[in-house]
């Protein structure tokens, strides 16, 4: 497979293109380097509201006309708002790529934020907060995020009921003017298109879009709070999440962390699944995952179980987190490595997955990183390296724990 090409455009946009001549569709992802960390403290939820409202009306089209225009070319579009970036993705046939970017440019550069749309967005966000109360796992994730990352990085995308109530249409416009510009844009494109073809389209559509100087590529420190909290909820299951400090994607230890997560939670034979579910039958769901704000890393381990099994589940998870640093085997490391390699190969068959991975690379490394290089880094990691990592980041490391459900953990 060809390597991605990375270039800095005169418009200020950072562009990465992976040319895949035989694919049927083009996947693109525009990342605007702004998210919840850029919200004023009394306007939490604003970044998400702006991201949701950009395509609800422009100087030339109503929101409905704009979305109809995307549908006319069969472009599957989506958007999301994160901590430090907001994403706008598109999937279309190559002949419509230019039109898709033209439409993206229109709503990113000339949104009008109709009053009625802003009011609706705020009302829907209020209702989404209500829906979150019915999503115990999502709620536990919200609490652990705040606890493990601190008041800035731990902000929840939807905001809070009281902050949503203070947001006005002027806030939408002000946030957009301050945070949306070509200097904060990273564009990734994968599919049957050359760099020259893509570059022409992007330059044409985004030249002169606000501030071209590159900003907002700095890291924000995590404020880790090593406490255990319980959040009462009338549910059948108790949800628990354990957070530990991890490493950023840009650090050398990241590949070791990746391998360790594979050992603990990567496959059917991973430790947590084996010990908590397979051997003891304590849970249906147990897992582990990482989160990476730019320049930081967190490791999470979670499970859901009925209250009478909660203590045993928690103890077993903690015991495994410690034990893995003691009796880890070469066979386990090899399996975890194989799992990562195969998943990488399989992702290579899916255009949008390649595009998304490239967008992540731009965010964390400032350039695309070949899959071969990522896998090469994994190859050199030994059992000893992983054990050393466990000693440093897990064994006696401070933990932040959230439980949510009918019963607190017994101390």
């Amino acid at each position: 497979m060809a390597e991605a090409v990375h270039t800095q455009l005169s418009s200020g946009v950072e562009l990465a293109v992976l040319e895949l001549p035989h694919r049927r569709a083009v996947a693109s992802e525009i990342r605007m380097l702004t998210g919840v960390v850029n919200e004023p403290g009394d306007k939490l939820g604003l970044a998400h509201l702006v991201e949701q409202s950009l395509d609800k009306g422009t100087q030339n089209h109503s929101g409905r006309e704009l979305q109809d225009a995307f549908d006319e070319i069969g472009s599957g579009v989506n958007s999301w708002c994160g901590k430090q970036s907001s994403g706008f993705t598109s999937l279309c046939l190559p002949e419509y790529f230019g039109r898709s970017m033209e439409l993206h440019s229109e709503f990113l550069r000339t949104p009008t934020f109709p009053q009625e749309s802003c009011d609706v967005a705020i009302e829907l966000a209020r209702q989404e907060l209500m829906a979150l109360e019915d999503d115990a796992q999502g709620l536990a994730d919200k609490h652990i995020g705040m606890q493990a990352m601190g008041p800035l990085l731990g902000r929840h995308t939807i905001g809070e009921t009281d902050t949503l109530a203070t947001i006005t249409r002027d806030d939408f416009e002000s946030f957009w003017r301050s945070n949306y510009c070509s200097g904060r844009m990273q564009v990734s494109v994968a599919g049957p298109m050359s760099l020259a073809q893509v570059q022409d389209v992007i330059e044409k559509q985004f030249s002169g879009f606000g501030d071209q100087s590159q900003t907002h590529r700095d890291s924000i420190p995590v404020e880790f709070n090593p406490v255990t909290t319980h959040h009462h909820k009338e549910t059948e299951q108790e949800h628990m999440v354990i957070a530990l400090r991890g490493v950023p994607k840009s650090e050398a230890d990241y590949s070791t962390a990746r391998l360790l997560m594979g050992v603990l939670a990567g496959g059917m034979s991973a430790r947590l699944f084996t010990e908590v579910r397979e051997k003891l039958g304590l849970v249906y769901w147990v897992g582990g995952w990482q989160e990476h704000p730019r320049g930081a890393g967190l490791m999470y381990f979670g499970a859901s179980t009925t209250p009478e099994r909660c203590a045993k589940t928690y103890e077993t998870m903690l015991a495994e987190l410690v034990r893995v640093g003691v009796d880890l085997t070469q066979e386990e490391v090899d399996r975890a490595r194989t799992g990562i390699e195969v998943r990488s190969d399989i992702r290579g068959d899916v255009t949008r997955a390649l595009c998304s991975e490239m967008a992540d690379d731009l965010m964390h490394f400032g350039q695309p990183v070949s899959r071969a290089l990522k896998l090469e880094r994994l190859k050199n990691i030994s059992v000893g390296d992983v054990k050393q990592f466990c000693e440093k980041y897990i064994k006696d490391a401070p933990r932040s724990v959230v439980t949510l459900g009918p019963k607190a953990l017994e101390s």
Partner: protein
Amino acid sequence: MADQFTITKLSNGMNIAIERMEGVKSVAAGFLVQTGARDETPDLAGVSHFLEHMCFKGTPNRTAAEINIDFDRIGGNPNAFTSHDRTFYHGLARSADFPKQLEILADMMNSSLPPDEFDMEKNVVLEEIAMSNDRIEHVAFDLIVESVFKNNTLAWPVLGYDRTVKALTRDQMNHYFRSRYTPANMVLVVTGAVDPDEVIAQAEKVCGHWKAGERRPDRTKPVMGKGIVQKTIDRFQQQVVAITFEGPGATHPLHDTAEAAASILGGGNSRFYWNIEQTGLAPYAGAYRLDFGDCGLFILMAQCDPQNADRVIDALRDEAKSFAAGPVSDDEIQRVKNKRRTGLAVEGESPHHRLVQVMDDVDYRGEPRTVEDRIAAVNAVGRESLREYFDAFPVDGEGLLVSVGPLQSSAA
């Protein structure tokens, strides 16, 4: 039959469907077992799904741990799901590891249902039921199916009930397993970077000796229930409201028209999106289809603030009536067709997506369709077929109204 497909039978009669895909490195493979929750008796509700769990728990050749380890040694990404009418075990691996992947999957189809694992796994299934009970949309979906299909075996949830799973014995499961997991009820599906001849030879080696067995009993087509069903659950904050109508089954000629109708009414950039969600009435409102081989449902569903529930029900009904009364513009139809075509083109790249599509086609239609066949079916949708659809499957009648959440809806 298009060139990329190879459809054949093993010596014991088991069907195999293979799609050779160019330009990919991976291979997806799966065993379709044509039995699911609707093929159970009421006292065994949940056995198909519990059995799916047990097939990972040990065989005469491997313990549960060995199954997991062997899959992970090749990065095999195994998984399985059970629905009302099928159980599907599948994996995705590099093409070089396909023989091993197939051998492990085939071994699992001969589970020993280890007695010492049975009670342990029962706890896991009970936890899965508890998890589902904490999700309002799952509770609502189960209530829709239970109410619309009452008096039919489609009525109970795929997971079964707490009481039926607790009461289930290993002997009961074993009897069900031996009668259903036979070549007469199974299809091997393989998609991706493979040589069909090698797949067939490998399949003959690992499955060819299985005894043919008997076809499972015929299914009874349900009669759709109507009326109003409400369930008050105080611990939820939101209300889920749903109006369910009869829809076409998976093989009905109007199947793709139903897909377009659902998309126009309740997909992205749809009538529900603009006239319900974007008026602030409800954050989630959609139109969904549930297909089986012999019947189908067309479901209008929303999650909302309980105080908006009555207005949301009215809005769902009004939009459906207005849609059925027409007119529907050609542009509106074309837009949803365009989106679907792009989606199909992209899905056509992935061995895993194709595995599920080919499996679905083989199960319901008896033969697979190419991506181009699917796109042609989408292209055939138009104003006339929509008119025909609404005549055959009206959405402006009473239907079945289900409401779940803290309130009882007065509009009901």
